[in-house]
C-alpha cells in the first residue's frame, strides 16, 4: 500500500487529537484529585499524552494552529476521550478503555516500519504505564467498598458505548483492527472480572453511539471544552506566547 503524505498527516491528526483531548481532560483534575499522590500520577499521564500530541500534530502541520484554530468539526479524536471527567471512577474507566486500546495500537506500530514507528516505540512504554495505573485503580474501586463498586460499574457501563469507535480503521494507520478489538475485549474483560465488575453488554457500534468522532462529529461537552481551550489563543490573532 502506498501511503501518501496527506494520508499520514490525516492519520497523525486522528491519533494526535486523541492524545491532545485526553491530556486536556486529565489536566482539569489539577487541584481536584482525591489524594495528593494521585495529583502527581494524573499529571504524569497528562504530560505523556501532551508530548505524544505535540509530536503527532507536528507531523500534520503547526501544532498550535491545529490545536487552537480548528473548529470542532475538524477535530478527529474519538468521542471517548472528550467525555467529561465525571467522578474518579469515570476518569479511571475512560483511562482503562483508552490506554488498553493505545497500548495495542502503539505496540503494533512500534513493531512496523511506518511513519509512526519512532513515536510509537517511545509512546508504547508510556501507555503501558497508563494502562497499569488504570488497571490498579479499576481493581481497587471495583473490589473496594460497595459504594466504589457501584460507581465503577456505572462508569464502565456509561462509557462502554464509546468503545466501538476505537476499532474503526484509520486510513494511513497500518494496524490489524479486528485483531486489536478481540485482544482489547479480552484484556479489558479480564481486568473487569478481576475487579468483580460485570462486563457491560450494551451496544458498542451503530448510529450516533460510535463511528463519529473520527469523521468530525462530536458530543455536546466537546464544544465547551474547545471554547475554553482555544479562547485565549484566538483572542490574540497572530501573537506569540
Amino acid at each position: 500500500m502506498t501511503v501518501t503524505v496527506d494520508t499520514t498527516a490525516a492519520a497523525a491528526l486522528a491519533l494526535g487529537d486523541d492524545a491532545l483531548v485526553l491530556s486536556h481532560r486529565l489536566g482539569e483534575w489539577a487541584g481536584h484529585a482525591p489524594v495528593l499522590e494521585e495529583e502527581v500520577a494524573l499529571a504524569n499521564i497528562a504530560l505523556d499524552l501532551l508530548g505524544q500530541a505535540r509530536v503527532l500534530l507536528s507531523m500534520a502541520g503547526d501544532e498550535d494552529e491545529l490545536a487552537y484554530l480548528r473548529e470542532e468539526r475538524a477535530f478527529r479524536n474519538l468521542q471517548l476521550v472528550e467525555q467529561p471527567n465525571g467522578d474518579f471512577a469515570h476518569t479511571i474507566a475512560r483511562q482503562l478503555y483508552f490506554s488498553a486500546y493505545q497500548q495495542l495500537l502503539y505496540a503494533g506500530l512500534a513493531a512496523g516500519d511506518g511513519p509512526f514507528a519512532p513515536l510509537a516505540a517511545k509512546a508504547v512504554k508510556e501507555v503501558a504505564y497508563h494502562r497499569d495505573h488504570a488497571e490498579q485503580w479499576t481493581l481497587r474501586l471495583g473490589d473496594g467498598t460497595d459504594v466504589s463498586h457501584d460507581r465503577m460499574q456505572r462508569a464502565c457501563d456509561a462509557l462502554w458505548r464509546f468503545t466501538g469507535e476505537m476499532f474503526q480503521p484509520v486510513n494511513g494507520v497500518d494496524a490489524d483492527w479486528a485483531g486489536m478489538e478481540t485482544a482489547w475485549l479480552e484484556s479489558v474483560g479480564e481486568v473487569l472480572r478481576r475487579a468483580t465488575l460485570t462486563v457491560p453488554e450494551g451496544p458498542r457500534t451503530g448510529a450516533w453511539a460510535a463511528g463519529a468522532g473520527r469523521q468530525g462529529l462530536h458530543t455536546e461537552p466537546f464544544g465547551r471544552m474547545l471554547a475554553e481551550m482555544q479562547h485565549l489563543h484566538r483572542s490574540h490573532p497572530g501573537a506569540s506566547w
Partner: protein
Amino acid sequence: MSTTDWPLWEVFVRSRRGLAHTHAGSLHAPDAELALRNARDLYTRRGEGVSIWVVPSSAITASSPDEKDPFFEPSADKPYRHPTFYEIPEGVKHL
C-alpha cells in the same frame, strides 16, 4: 476517618545501575503496589531512578539516639582498622 488513613511508606531509589538504593523520602499508599507506583511518579519524575524499593515505615527497626554512645563510640578508638594506621617505607609499591 481511620478507614481513609493510608499507611506511610519509606522510598528507596537506585539512581543508576551500580549504586545502592538510598532513602529518597516517604509517601502514603493503601498497599505495596500503589506505594511503588506512587514512588515512581513522585520520586523519579526527573529520571532520578532505575529501581525503587518501598518499605512500610512501621517495619523499620532503628537504633535509638539514646544508645548512640554505646552503639557507635567504641568503634572510634580502633585506628588499626584503617590503612592509614600503618607506616610503610617510602618507595614500597602496590601496598
